[in-house]
């Protein structure tokens, strides 16, 4: 299983909660929408998903191709 960070800017209201509580400073609000600025540092902890009031960011588990 590989984990992927996915954002859905069309649902984002730009509250900035995910940006504040991201332990690796991966995210930024640009023009009131969530933007991933530092993807390589993301540790896929899922704290953003847990605290996003608008379900605009989440970690997806993708099955590895065999």
């Amino acid at each position, binding site marked *: 299983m590989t984990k992927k960070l996915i954002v859905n800017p069309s649902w984002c209201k730009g509250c900035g909660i995910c*940006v504040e509580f991201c332990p690796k400073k991966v995210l930024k609000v640009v023009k009131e929408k969530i933007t991933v600025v530092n993807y390589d540092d993301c540790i896929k902890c899922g704290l953003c998903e847990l605290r996003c009031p608008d379900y605009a960011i989440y970690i997806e588990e993708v099955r590895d191709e065999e």
Partner: protein
Amino acid sequence: MPSELILKYMREEHLPHIWCPGCGHGILMRNVAQAIKNLGIDQEKVCLVSGIGCASRAAGYMDFQTMHTTHGRAIAYATGVKMARPDLEVIVIAGDGDCAAIGGNHLIHAARRNIGITVIVFNNDIYGMTGGQYSPTTPHGEFGTTAPYGNIDRPFDIAVLAAGAGASYVAKGTTYHAQQTIKLIENGIKHKGFSLIDCAGICPTYYGRKNKKGGAVEMMRYQRDNTITVEQAAKMTREEKEGKLILGKIAENDFPEFSDEYQKIIDRLKEGK
């Protein structure tokens, strides 16, 4: 595309929801979905009942058997559902005003009867939908549109009120502590009898603005830095607990459940005794 959890437990066509930017209700609603998923309960066997208010919109967004009822009466409707169909998992989502002011009497009597429903309070200390009026949980001295010089009421502690009225499982969660709150909601749903989980919400639009608490981020930070456990709270004086949020289980008891007791009467009369 939203996450699997959202796709399964929410009505995607109604999202994004209409709650304000940074409103804690979205986080709490996700917690409810996650708790139900973790318990592996059949979606068709969950009946979600809500009244009126910001929090009560959850019944429109969540994909279960749902009822959006009248102001303050969600618990009364839920009682009816549970009596007719005791096999269903009946869950009520209510705001602080809906639950403790307009529906205050329904709350205490459902707790007293110990009917097997789970009440999840999205408690943001203010009436959001109608424009920031102070609610029964607005702390003393805080501001609302109807308390422009500060609230002179003393607030209800909904969890302690429910426990005092006889609820058999009572806990307190917060918006910031999502993982712990999910666990508490799970325990509440699993518990047989009346359960109530009082979740401290955040309302940046009205409560935050009226009381200069900052935006959503500042209010979340406040919850992070000012939450104590039930065990810590037990050792503190009232003055020390001022402004603190409590996290954890307040009460758990093994009282007889109401729909069970009712069934016992039916069985007894059928036997002609």
